[in-house]
């Protein structure tokens, strides 16, 4: 360990300060982890705006089906003749909304931003292991965004087979218009996305293993870094499987192979495919798809752990258990994918196995939730906007996580599978929670990223209205799911059985519109504060981790002098025997002081 730190140090002194920077190397093709983090954040934010707008559009369609709307006419053009949304466009919106939010916002936008920003800062490194690969991964991500957005402007429309793109629907252009070029671009965009994710993950893993500063043992790492590290490992294990599924699907679509297709009769003709199985695709997809939700939620958990401890002025409760539960969740996440497939036609015995492994995940999750609650117990809670979002995270994570006990139980899943109950479940537990984690992280590390503070009053309003609308949208959704309403229906008016759900759907949409509108306050706060926010001090939240020992102005190599050495874990808040209620990691132990045995 110590030899590494010395090596890197010597090497870094060589390239640290002298490079002449132009506008292009500083802001565009930057190899600096701080700039790349900002690039990820801003690209992710823009994608998020598009993803949320789409959800508002299809929510309006569900609440007031087939009513003309000038908004649709303006935004969808030929896909909304007379302002009435087309049914194919509805499916396309649902599909692209899911893709954008899961991959582009909550994977790249969340993990890409904070892994890049915090890993070098918090472990005491001057930059990522490979700045060049880091830059490459952002720009591949950028191209992948452009391709995904480009697919929206195709003649036949973008991919519309659901974000899970199950074949044969996604494989056959005659099954729906979006499965032509729209799906081709979707697959190319995702292949690039996976490439950038792998490059990024490898970089994170190597950096965490090799580049920790002197004294930064694995057990002194902040939980954020633990979370990013384990997330990167899950990504490396599971993303290649999705890549293989995408490649095989491309083969089926364009080169006539039959990996996923067999015995198909469509539009009056028999296709030549024989011997493949769509269930195989489902296995490959969910082998990534399920770990993916942990790729989304683990970084948020890491950020929240850090923010709860800092703002409670208390050590995180049960550090070892928190690390162990991250590892347990990571391991279990790779053996539960079949719970998405209880009614796919696979052997019922497999259903039993996956029910068992799935419900096991509730144990480490429960440990985490209880440890968070104990962390704020008897704290001295500073209600900064980041803290509110962190508390909100715990709240929605519990509400959403609990219904996992129902959807993960094969016998119950038979009935709620693919209904709105599932939508409510995963939006709360990984959608809203992860977004809260991301907001918490942005409010907390904004001073580090931009050297200025965000307006806290706008932050408070942003949080409270968002929190109310999030529950307003997704809580009632459980009930329409239990009433048997399937998801991805363009309108529910084809079934009089569901007429009594019209009111609930309107309530949900109104909350969604309020929740969407309030994000404008956040965007205003975010973008205006970059230029006009109050100048930040070096350590505004009085935090212990190393990033707050760097100067406010960003410099190449992070620390002007030597990299600080680390003498203690990152959670020495309110430690008895110290005057301040926090002791930074680079402060040596006092004489006779014992390090917390964690």
């Amino acid at each position, binding site marked *: 360990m110590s030899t590494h730190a010395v090596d890197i140090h010597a090497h870094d002194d060589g390239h640290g300060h002298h490079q002449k920077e132009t506008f292009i190397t500083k802001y565009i093709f930057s190899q600096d982890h701080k700039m790349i983090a900002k690039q990820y954040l801003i690209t992710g934010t823009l994608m998020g705006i598009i993803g949320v707008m789409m959800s508002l559009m299809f929510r309006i369609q569900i609440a*007031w089906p087939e009513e003309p709307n000038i908004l649709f006419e303006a935004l969808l053009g030929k896909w909304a003749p007379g302002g009435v949304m087309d049914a194919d466009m509805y499916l396309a919106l649902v599909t692209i909304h899911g893709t954008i939010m899961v991959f582009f916002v909550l994977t790249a936008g969340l993990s890409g931003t904070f892994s890049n920003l915090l890993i070098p800062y918090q472990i005491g490194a001057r930059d990522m292991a490979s700045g060049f690969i880091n830059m490459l991964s952002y720009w591949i991500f950028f191209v992948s965004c452009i391709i995904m957005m480009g697919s929206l402007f195709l003649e036949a429309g973008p991919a519309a087979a659901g974000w899970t793109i*199950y074949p044969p*629907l996604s494989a*056959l252009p005659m*099954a729906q218009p979006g499965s032509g070029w729209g799906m081709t671009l979707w697959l190319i965009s995702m292949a690039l996305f996976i490439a950038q994710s792998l490059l990024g993950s490898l970089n994170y893993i190597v950096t965490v293993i090799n580049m920790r500063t002197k004294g930064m043992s694995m057990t002194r790492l902040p939980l954020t870094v633990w979370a990013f590290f384990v997330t990167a490992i899950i990504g490396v294990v599971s993303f290649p499987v999705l890549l293989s599924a995408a490649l095989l699907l491309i083969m089926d679509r364009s080169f006539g192979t039959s990996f996923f297709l067999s*015995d198909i*009769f*469509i539009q009056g003709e*028999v296709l030549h495919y024989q011997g493949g199985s*769509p*269930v195989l695709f489902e296995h490959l997809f969910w082998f990534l798809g399920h770990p993916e939700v942990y790729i989304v939620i683990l970084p948020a958990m890491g950020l929240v752990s850090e923010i709860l401890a800092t703002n409670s002025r208390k050590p*995180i*409760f*049960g*550090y070892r258990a928190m690390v162990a539960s991250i590892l347990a969740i990571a391991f279990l996440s790779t053996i539960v994918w079949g719970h998405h497939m209880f009614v796919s*036609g696979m052997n*019922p015995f497999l259903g*039993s196995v996956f*029910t*068992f492994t799935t*419900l*096991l995940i509730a144990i480490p999750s429960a440990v985490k939730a209880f440890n968070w609650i104990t962390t*704020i117990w*008897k*704290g*001295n809670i500073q209600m*900064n906007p980041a803290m509110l979002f962190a*508390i909100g995270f715990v*709240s929605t994570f519990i*509400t959403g996580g*609990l219904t996992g*006990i*129902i959807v993960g*139980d094969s*016998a119950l899943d038979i*009935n709620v599978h*693919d209904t709105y109950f599932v939508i409510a479940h995963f939006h709360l537990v990984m959608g809203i929670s992860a977004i809260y984690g991301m907001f918490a992280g942005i409010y907390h590390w904004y001073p580090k990223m931009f050297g200025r503070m965000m*307006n806290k009053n706008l932050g*408070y309003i942003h949080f*409270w209205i968002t*929190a109310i609308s999030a529950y307003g949208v997704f*809580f*009632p959704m459980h*009930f329409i799911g239990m009433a048997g309403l*399937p998801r*991805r229906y363009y*309108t529910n008016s084809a*079934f009089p059985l569901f*007429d*009594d759900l019209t009111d609930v759907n309107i309530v949900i949409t*109104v909350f969604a519109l309020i929740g969407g509108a309030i994000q404008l*306050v956040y965007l205003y706060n975010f973008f205006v504060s970059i230029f006009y926010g*109050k100048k*930040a001090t070096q350590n505004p939240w009085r935090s212990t981790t190393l990033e707050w020992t760097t100067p406010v102005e960003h410099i190449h190599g992070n620390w002007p002098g030597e990299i600080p050495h680390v003498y203690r874990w990152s*959670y020495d*808040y*309110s430690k008895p025997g110290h005057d301040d*209620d926090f002791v930074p990691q680079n402060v040596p132990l006092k004489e006779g002081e014992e390090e917390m*045995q*964690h």
Partner: protein
Amino acid sequence: MTALFIIIIVLFAAVAIWQMVKIFDLAQVSTDTSNNGIATDYDNKINGYLMLAFLAFIYIITIISFVYWGDLPLMSNAASEHGSEVDNLMMISMIVIFTVQIITQFLLHYFAFKYRGEKGKKALYFADHNTLEAVWTIIPVIVLAGLIIYGLFTWNSIMNIDEDADPMVVELYAQQFGWTARYAGQDNVLGLANVRLIDIDRANVLGIDEADPNAEDDIIVKELHLPVGKPVLFEIRSQDVLHSAYMPHFRAQMNCVPGMITKFGFTPTITTKEMRETPEMIDKVQNINNIRADKSKELMAKGEEELDPYEFHFLLLCNKICGKSHYNMQMNIIVETQEEYDAWIAEQKTFKESLK
């Protein structure tokens, strides 16, 4: 129009919030620490109370949801034998969930309120407690073990179809965007079939093998009739893309996968007629018809046709995204007495008779 109206309201709400923020800002201009973006004692206090208010909001929205939308069709009135087992398991899981939800949300928000920060206060340095952590590891283990065992027993009893009970074999056949059903006929064996054998001109729409003697007495219909109290085994096919045969009243669902036959079996326990006469169903249908009558008035005012009144039917829905008309892929299921069923099936043409 309503949509536009709501959008305007939302915009006004945004403006109102804007003004509120301005007021917040102006009110705090005098104190020097207020605008540096870091929470003050005042902020801690306000947000601490808001935490309590939010806890109340969570409880209220829970109660409202149960009162207004809690008429949970999936938790009562199962129309199949295994359905009541599923409903029991659902009920137990729900009780566990709501107990945990109420307690943990209380602790979280109450602590956030109770321990809101004040200047000069110092937090407790409390980093570890093995007994506590063991307690909240072991309690979930025990509760989940119970749920897993109960769940797996239920799952196995549903999915392991008892062939000795001599179930009636029925094929469900899915295509974009409709359902067809095929009864196995007198011999209770379905004739072999493959989409390659589809011959539209000869009205062989399901691709049944005309050379297979088992196929001769098969009966193809567009409406599913089931005799009450008799086990039925569905063999499910799809001709084009994935679909999912979802029969919510029977707590039944299975995907339809091109290239393979999937299976699901259940025993209906109540006829359509009896179901229509249960008090819950009478209320529900009445309610739906009131809603439809209101909507009809609106439609008539616009010069459009009014809606038909609703009459209850068990339904087969498609529950896997399958393309443009996914939202309207349905078939009625009629559960009736054995005599009514026998009379109905006798009127239907066999496959051999229906061939052109």
